[in-house]
């Protein structure tokens, strides 16, 4: 049972079976492909279509009810298929080249012609470079291949260059069937991408498959974890090229799967194998395009020139021809205006597209960055998120909200560039559906996370006893073994000790400095936390373990607030109040904890904290004040003295003088520095003497430089010793920070 449809074919109404119609369509499509580079392509196809229509009508006149598939087959056989054309006649000019190409494959072995390097099309694995070299030196190809394999890494680039530069033994077919990349569904394993690629490049399927599989093999063997983004860190070539063999291959596969159409019809399959494509022919295509472009530009330019000339000529025209010439000149002027207008609109178009492209690319890059960062931070989820819905929603949000649009946009762009049709409705709508699901995930995640942070604990003040509270000077610093660096790169401040897998240490601490009513230092802390319920928040706050250790004048802070997978991060933080007696000094070093708070809800978080504290009536009224009140008005790394009116900063010189009374340690250091100073002074004297002796010599200038340098050094060490140390510390900190980020990426 076959459906019969009526078609209007070259001015004839033909009843035709649907199946036959499909065959006819495919046949004409294959002709279109075959004659793609023929000058009068449309005319030829039109003629052939006319003839087919005529033959069909003949058949109908003979009494057939409708055109069946068998009829179409007969007609097609009488006219001939593209494959028949090539086999039977050799009208196509390329057959000449084809035949000579076939002969080429052997001629360099005969030694009749001068020896030249060719890529061997017959014995190739990838591009035929190795076998070509083997032929050139008259050795076995496998020897070259093994040598090549041992050099893998540096020679990939060389291979690509040879592939492009060295001609193939099969001379390029000009005007043959255009080749297009398809997914080969006949030989598919997953999506037929590898099979399609192998057809396109004319290589074995298993090679493509192995290239796709390498990352998994390497991943399992733990050979070296390759990253798609590694080249940002290490821009060396082998790593850069490794992008093809990285987990990015999965990404590439998915994108290709979505982008490439299936080779359904026979015309598709013809195109899939089509003309031999390698890098050389791609290069040729581009070259031809460029040449064509310059030609067009030239002809356009001369056209414009002629038009201009035309207008000038018409002005000098004879009176007799005046009227006609005038007419013509206005016509030409119109043309000129038209061209100017077109240039104008074109340039505006280009400009608009340019802006749009920049906006689009930056959006895509931002999205990509978010995706990468979110994916990289995913291991942290155990420390923040509840198990179950919250975790799943964040994974869903990352995958669907961030990665799905990236893949979608990349796919669309590639399709656009490849000149393919838009993806079908189902693909597009499923993309949109996934993205909407991503929105749902992100909203659910946001609200549920907000909920987890919604309540605060009831604050309680605790005193911490210092071993020796009556000293004159206190310096708050980080524990000596603890590595803490100011992190300016990624603001993941709460997670400094992220490397420790079971527990991360959050360093949220605010230090207030207030006046003490007694003559000894007092330290009080308030532990604060958020949570789903007040009870939950209280529990978490109680679990905060915070200790101080005092060594002479140095007070060391604890490692941080421990966060583990059970006691998750709920903005645990500590407010430490140090009461300084009048006349005594304090310094908060740069090495201390971070003093920034995470503001999950912007300012809302802060006001919440303050409200809660003010509602507790036992507490000082000053807590009601804004956070930027006086008790926080100090700089880190600067020494302060408590007076009746509040804190007064001391200059480094003053501080040094005062400190010399406090600790011998400092004295020793100063002594060392003085000795160094003395030495430098002596050196300078010596050099001065030298200069006097060498004044007449030409080296004089250089010596003066040395003196200058030495003077500079001396001054530096003499006055702002400490500042310099701090700077060095900062620089080292930044360096290690970078190292840390690097490490994180490579892990």
């Amino acid at each position: 049972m076959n459906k019969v449809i009526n078609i209007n074919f070259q001015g004839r109404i033909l009843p035709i079976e649907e199946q036959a119609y499909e065959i006819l369509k495919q046949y004409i499509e294959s002709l279109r492909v075959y004659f793609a580079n023929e000058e009068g392509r449309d005319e030829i196809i039109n003629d052939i279509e006319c003839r087919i229509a005529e033959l069909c009508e003949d058949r109908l006149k003979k009494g057939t009810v409708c055109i069946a598939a068998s009829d179409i087959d007969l007609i097609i056989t009488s006219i001939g298929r593209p494959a028949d054309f090539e086999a039977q006649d050799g009208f196509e000019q390329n057959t000449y080249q084809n035949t000579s190409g076939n002969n080429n494959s052997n001629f360099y072995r005969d030694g009749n012609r001068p020896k030249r390097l060719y890529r061997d099309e017959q014995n190739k694995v990838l591009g035929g470079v190795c076998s070509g070299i083997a032929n050139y030196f008259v050795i076995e190809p496998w020897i070259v291949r093994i040598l090549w394999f041992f050099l893998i890494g540096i020679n990939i680039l060389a291979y690509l260059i040879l592939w492009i530069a060295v001609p193939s033994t099969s001379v390029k077919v000009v005007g043959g069937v255009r080749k297009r990349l398809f997914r080969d569904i006949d030989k598919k394993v997953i999506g037929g991408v590898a099979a399609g690629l192998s057809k396109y490049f004319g290589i074995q399927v298993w090679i493509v498959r192995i290239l796709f599989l390498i990352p998994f093999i390497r991943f399992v063997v733990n050979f070296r974890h390759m990253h798609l983004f590694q080249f940002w860190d290490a821009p060396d070539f082998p790593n850069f090229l490794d992008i093809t063999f990285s987990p990015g291959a999965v990404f590439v596969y998915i994108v290709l799967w979505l982008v490439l159409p299936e080779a359904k019809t026979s015309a598709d399959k013809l195109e899939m194998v089509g003309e031999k494509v390698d890098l050389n022919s791609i290069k040729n295509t581009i070259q031809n395009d460029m040449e064509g472009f310059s030609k067009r530009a030239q002809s356009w330019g001369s056209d414009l020139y002629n038009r201009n000339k035309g207008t000038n000529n018409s002005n000098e025209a004879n009176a007799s021809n005046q009227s006609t010439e005038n007419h013509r000149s206005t016509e030409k002027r119109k043309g000129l205006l038209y061209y100017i207008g077109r240039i104008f609109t074109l340039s505006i178009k280009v400009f608009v597209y340019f802006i749009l492209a920049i906006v689009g690319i930056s959006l895509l890059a931002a999205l990509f960055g978010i995706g990468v960062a979110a994916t990289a931070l995913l291991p942290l989820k155990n420390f923040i998120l509840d198990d179950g819905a919250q975790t799943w929603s964040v994974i869903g949000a990352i995958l669907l909200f961030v990665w799905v649009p990236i893949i979608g946009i990349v796919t669309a762009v590639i399709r656009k560039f490849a000149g393919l049709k838009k993806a079908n409705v189902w693909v597009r709508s499923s993309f949109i559906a996934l993205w909407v699901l991503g929105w749902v995930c992100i909203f659910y995640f946001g609200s549920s996370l907000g909920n987890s942070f919604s309540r605060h604990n009831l604050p309680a003040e605790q005193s911490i006893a210092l071993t020796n509270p009556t000293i004159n000077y206190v310096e708050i610093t980080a524990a000596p073994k603890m590595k803490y660096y100011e992190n300016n790169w990624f603001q993941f401040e709460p997670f400094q000790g992220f490397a420790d897998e079971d527990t991360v240490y959050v360093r949220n601490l605010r230090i207030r400095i207030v006046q003490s009513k007694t003559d000894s230092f007092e330290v009080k802390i308030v532990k604060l936390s958020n949570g789903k319920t007040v009870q939950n928040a209280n529990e978490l706050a109680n679990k905060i373990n915070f200790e101080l250790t005092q060594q002479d004048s140095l007070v060391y802070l604890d490692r941080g607030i421990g966060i583990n997978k059970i006691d998750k991060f709920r903005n645990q933080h500590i407010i430490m109040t140090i009461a300084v007696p009048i006349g005594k000094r304090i310094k908060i070093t740069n090495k201390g904890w971070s003093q920034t708070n995470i503001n999950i809800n912007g300012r809302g978080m802060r006001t919440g904290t303050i409200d809660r504290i003010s509602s507790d009536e036992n507490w000082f009224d000053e807590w009601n004040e804004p956070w930027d009140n006086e008790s926080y008005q100090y700089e880190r790394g600067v020494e302060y003295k408590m007076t009746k009116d509040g804190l007064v900063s001391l200059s480094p010189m003053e501080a040094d003088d005062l400190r010399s009374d406090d600790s011998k340690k400092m004295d020793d250091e100063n002594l060392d520095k003085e000795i160094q100073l003395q030495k430098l002074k002596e050196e300078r004297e010596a050099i001065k003497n030298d200069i006097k002796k060498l004044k007449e010599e030409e080296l004089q200038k250089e010596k003066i430089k040395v003196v200058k340098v030495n003077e500079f050094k001396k001054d530096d060490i003499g006055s702002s010793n400490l500042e310099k140390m701090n700077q060095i510390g900062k620089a080292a900190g930044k360096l290690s920070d970078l190292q840390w980020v690097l490490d994180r990426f490579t892990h």
Partner: protein
Amino acid sequence: MDIQNTQSQMRKGVLEFCILSIIQQGEVYPSDIVEKMKLANLHILEGTLYPLLTRLKNAGLLNYRWVESISGPPRKYFVMTEEGKVAFGVLLQTWKEMATAVDQLTQVKIIIANNIEQAVS
């Protein structure tokens, strides 16, 4: 030596000439050309004929005319232009020379072969 290739090249050289000689006899419809060639035992597919005709037309050797048919839309009939006639004359001349040359050469070979046979016997 690929005999098929040589054959197809020989045929290609002659085909254009054959088609021109058919059209030279008068206005003709493409399928008639195929028929006439079939009678002369030269097989050509319509799929290869049409591109060839278009090429010759674009080269200025041929021209076409729409002729009303009894049924259906008008059909395309090909005629030879003056330029085409000149070109045909040149080709004819070349063909005659070639034919005599080839005949002479092949006959010589046959004579030699006969001689050898006689000598052997």
